[in-house]
C-alpha cells in the first residue's frame, strides 16, 4: 500500500515541530525517517499512526484519505489497520506473551482457532513458540523485542511503523535484530516506515531515506545515493564523521579547486558552484604518505595534535600550518606533535555549495 503525505504541519504551542513535510512511501518499500532528536520524525510517525493530530496537511493510505485537515478527516488509530513497534516495546505487563500478540486479533472477533493459529505462526516466525505462556518481564530484552514484532505483524497490517525499535537494545543484540527485522520485512513484502536517529540503521534497512532537520526535509532518496552525495553540510555531517574544508571555489575543467587558509585542493563538484563551497572528505579516504612520494592526489602537510583509540582503529586530529583541522583514521598510533604528510584522491573530495545551515557539530 502506497502512503502519501502532503504538506504535513504539526505545532506544539509556539513551536512548529513539522513544517510542511511531503513524501511518498512506495508500496512494499521501507522508508527511513532519519534525523537528530527534536527534528520531528517521531511526530510524523505518530501522525501516520493517528496518535497525533496534525494541524495541516493530508495523509493517504492507498486511495483512502486517513487524515485531511481541510476535509476534517481523521481516522482513529484503531481503524487504520496498522502494526507498530514501539521504542520501549510497550508490552502489556499484565498479559502473557500469547495474549499480548492476540490482543488485536481478538478485537476483530475472529474464530478462536483462527486467532490461535495466527498468533502461533507469528510467534514461530520470531522463535518464541515456547514462550507463549510467559509474562513479558520473564523474558530477556531481545525476546521482548521479538514479542513486540510478533504483535505488530500478526494482524497482517497494511503499514508497519517502527519507532526507534532497536534503540533500547545493547549493541550486539541490536545488530542481530536489525538483520532479522530486515529479512522479515522483505519476506512479508510489507510497507514500512522506520524512524531512527542511527544512520547505520537507516542505511542498512531502508530502500528510501528521508533526512529531517528542524521539522523540514533536508534530503530524500536512495540511501546509498544520499550517503555518497549529501546535498548539504547537515546531511553530510549527520551521516557520519566528515572533514569539511571551506574556501573559495574555482572551476578547473571537470573538477573544482577549493582554496582556503593554507590549503588548495581539487575535488568533484556536486551542485552549482557559486564562489564559496565546502569540500567534504571522509576520514577513511585520507592516507598517510611519504614526504618524498609524488602523486596526482591532493596532499597536505600537517601536525598531529590529538588522538584516541576507537577499538578497531585510531582517530587522530591533525592541523595544517594555517590552523585547518582534519580527522584521519589510522591502523597504528602516531606520535603526538609529529609532522606528517596526508593525501586523498580527487574523487574522494566532494565539493558542495556553501549553505547557511552549519549542520550538527562533527
Amino acid at each position, binding site marked *: 500500500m502506497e502512503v502519501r503525505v502532503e504538506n504535513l504541519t504539526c505545532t506544539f504551542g509556539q513551536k512548529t515541530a513539522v513544517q510542511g513535510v511531503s513524501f511518498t512511501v512506495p508500496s512494499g518499500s521501507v522508508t527511513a525517517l532519519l534525523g537528530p532528536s527534536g527534528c520531528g520524525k517521531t511526530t510524523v510517525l505518530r501522525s501516520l499512526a493517528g*496518535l497525533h493530530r496534525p494541524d495541516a496537511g493530508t495523509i493517504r493510505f*492507498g486511495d483512502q484519505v486517513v487524515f485531511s485537515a481541510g476535509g476534517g478527516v481523521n481516522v482513529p*488509530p484503531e481503524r487504520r489497520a496498522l502494526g*507498530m513497534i514501539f521504542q520501549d516495546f510497550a508490552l502489556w*505487563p499484565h498479559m502473557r506473551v500469547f495474549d499480548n500478540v492476540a490482543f488485536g486479533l481478538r478485537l476483530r472477533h475472529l474464530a478462536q482457532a483462527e486467532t490461535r493459529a*495466527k498468533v502461533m505462526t507469528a510467534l514461530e516466525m520470531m522463535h518464541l513458540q515456547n514462550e507463549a505462556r510467559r509474562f513479558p518481564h520473564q523474558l530477556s530484552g531481545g525476546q521482548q523485542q521479538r514479542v513486540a514484532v510478533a504483535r505488530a505483524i500478526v494482524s497482517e497490517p497494511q503499514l508497519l511503523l517502527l519507532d526507534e525499535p532497536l534503540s533500547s537494545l545493547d549493541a550486539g543484540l541490536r545488530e542481530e535484530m536489525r538483520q532479522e527485522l530486515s529479512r522479515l520485512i522483505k519476506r512479508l513484502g510489507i510497507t514500512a516506515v522506520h524512524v531512527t536517529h542511527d544512520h547505520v540503521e537507516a542505511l542498512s534497512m531502508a530502500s528510501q531515506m528521508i533526512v529531517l532537520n528542524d521539522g523540514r526535509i533536508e534530503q530524500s532518496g536512495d540511501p546509498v545515493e544520499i550517503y555518497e552525495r549529501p546535498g548539504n553540510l547537515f546531511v553530510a555531517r549527520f551521516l557520519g564523521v566528515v572533514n569539511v574544508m571551506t574556501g573559495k571555489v574555482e572551476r578547473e575543467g571537470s573538477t573544482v579547486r577549493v582554496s582556503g587558509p593554507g590549503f588548495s585542493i581539487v575535488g568533484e563538484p556536486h551542485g552549482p558552484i557559486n564562489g564559496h563551497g565546502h569540500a567534504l572528505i571522509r576520514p577513511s579516504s585520507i592516507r598517510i604518505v611519504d614526504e618524498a612520494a609524488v602523486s596526482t592526489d591532493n596532499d597536505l602537510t600537517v601536525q598531529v595534535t590529538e588522538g584516541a583509540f576507537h577499538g578497531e582503529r585510531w582517530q587522530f586530529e591533525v592541523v595544517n600550518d594555517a590552523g585547518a583541522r582534519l580527522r584521519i583514521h589510522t591502523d597504528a598510533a602516531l606520535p603526538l606533535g609529529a609532522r606528517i604528510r596526508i593525501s586523498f584522491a580527487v574523487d574522494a573530495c566532494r565539493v558542495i555549495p556553501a549553505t547557511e545551515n552549519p549542520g550538527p557539530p562533527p
Partner: protein
Amino acid sequence: MSLAAAPELRTHARGDAWRRHLALDRIVVAVALACLAVLIVFPLAMLLMQAVFPAGAVPLGPFVETFSTPSNYIAIIDSIGIGLVVCVTASLIGIPLAILLNRTDLPGRRIFEALVWVDFFTPSYLVSLGWTALMQRGGFLDLTLGHMNPFASSFFSPFGIALVLTFKLFPFVYLAASAGLQAIGAEYEEAARVAGSGRLHAWLRIVIPLLRPAILAGLILVFAEVISDFGIAATIGQQAGFPLMTLEVYNYVSSWPINYPLAAAMSTFLVLSMGAALGVQSLLLRRRSYQVISGRAHQPNQIALGAWKWAVLGATILVFAIALGAPFTASIAISLMQNIGRGLEASNFGFQNYASVLSDLHLGIGALWRSVELSIGAATLTSVLSLLVTYMIYRWRGLGRLVLNNVTVISMVVPSIVMAAGYVFAFNQAWLFNAGIALYGTLLLLLLSYIGQQVSMAVRLHLSGVQQISGSLIDAAQVSGARMLTLLVRIVLPLMRKSIVSVWLLTFVIIMFDLAMSEMLYPPGEPTLGVALIQKFGDLGNIGTGTAMMMLAIGFVLAVVLIINIVFRGDARANQLAGAQRRI
C-alpha cells in the same frame, strides 16, 4: 503468513461492530459527564446563585450583610485568627520533629513516623471528642484527679480549639518539611561545612533557607485545613460558644433562624479563601525557588544527639502523648466504665457500654451499620466514576480536558460543609419536588453527596497513578484496534490495580467517618456514625456508649484496612506486575 487479504474488506467487516462500540463509548462518556454535572456543578452553582442572586433580596446583598454586621463577620475573624495561630504553633512542633526524625539518631524514629501518619489520618472530630471525654466537667480528668480539674472551663475556649488543632495538624508541617529535607539531600550542607561553616551555621544559613518554600507550602495547607475544619468547630467550638466559619454555615442552614443567603455568602467567602491559599501553595511548589539535587542524593550524616538524647526522646513522646495518647486513653477508659458517675473503682469496669451499643438499633449499631453500607456503596461508585473521568482527562485533549481538569481541581478545595450546603440549596427546591424528584431528606441524596464530595480527590489521585503507566502501552493497544472501553477494561484498569484499591480504601475511610455532609443531609431518624457520636457526646450520661461506639468504629475500619492490605499484598502477581511495569 499471507498479507494478501484486502485491507478494505477487513475494514468493512469491522464497520458494524465498530459503530456499536462507538455508541457504547458515547453513552458511558455522557453518563459520566452527567454525573459530574449533577453531583458537583449543580450544587456549587446553586450555592453561588444563592449568594449572588438571593430570592427576594438585592444581588450580592448577602455579602454586604455578612461584612457589615459584627455578629456575622466575627466568625471570619475568628477562623482566620485561629488559622494564623495554629500555623505558628504547628510549625513549632512540626519542623523540629521533621529534623529530629530525618537527621538525628533519636531512638524509635520509625515508630514516631508511623504515629505522625496515624495522627494525619485520624478524623478531627474523633480527636476532639476524645478531648471532650477527657476535659469535660465530670470527664476522665476529673475522675483521675478525684476532684474538679482546673482546666474544664478554660479548655472549652479558643485556647482549647487551637491546642487540639495544633496537635491534629502539625503532621502537615512535618510532612512538608520532611519532603523538603529529603529532596535537599546532604550535599549543600556538606559543601557549607567543607567551606568552613560550623554545623549550626550551616543549618541556619543553608538548610533552613532551602527548606523555606516547602515549609511555607505546608503552613498554607495547615491554614486551609483550619478554616475548612468542621469536626472541631462542631464539637469544642460549639461548646465554647466560639463561632467559626464552618459552624456558622451549618447553623445558618440547619438551625433557627435559618438564613440560606448568609450561609451561601459565608460559604463562597470560605471557598475563595481556600482557593487563594491553595493557589499560592501550588505556585510556591511549582516555582521551586531552590534546585534540589535529584536522584543521586546520598544518605546524609546523622546528627548525634549525645547527652540530649533522652531529654529529646521525652519531649517527642510528650508530643504524641498529647496528640493521640490523651484523647484516646480517656476514650478507651470511659468506654470501659459501666457508670461514669462511679469513677475509677475496679468493679466499675466492664464491657457493658459495648454491649449496649451493639443492641441499640437506633443510635448504636444501627447508625454504625448504616455508615458502613453507605461508605462501601459510595466508595465503590466514586471509584467507578472517578476512573472514567480520570481516563477522559488522561486521553482527551483540548476543551473537554480543560473543563474536567478545572471542575475536579476547583471542587477539591470546596470544604465538605460548603458542599453539603450546596446540596441543600440544590435539592431542597420546590420545583424539584413538584417535578417528582424528592431526593432531599433521603439516604440516596446522602449517598450522592458523599460521591460528589469525594470524586474529585479520587480523580486527582488516580491521575497520578495513571501517569505512571507508559503512554506507549496505551498507544500500542489503540494501534491494535482497541477503542476506549476496551482500552480501559483490558489495559488501564489492570495496570492501575494497586492505585484503585488504595483510593477505594481511602474514600471508604473518609466517608465512614464523615461528619459535615452527614450532619447537614442525614434523613431524620436515620443517623450515621458521625451524627450519632455527636449526639451521644452532647450528654454526659451517653458519653460511655459514645466512646464505646467510637472504639468499635475505629476497630472495624482498622480491620477492613488490615484485611484488604493482607489480601492485596499476598497477591504476588500484583507485585510482580508493579515490578515489571517499572522495568519495561
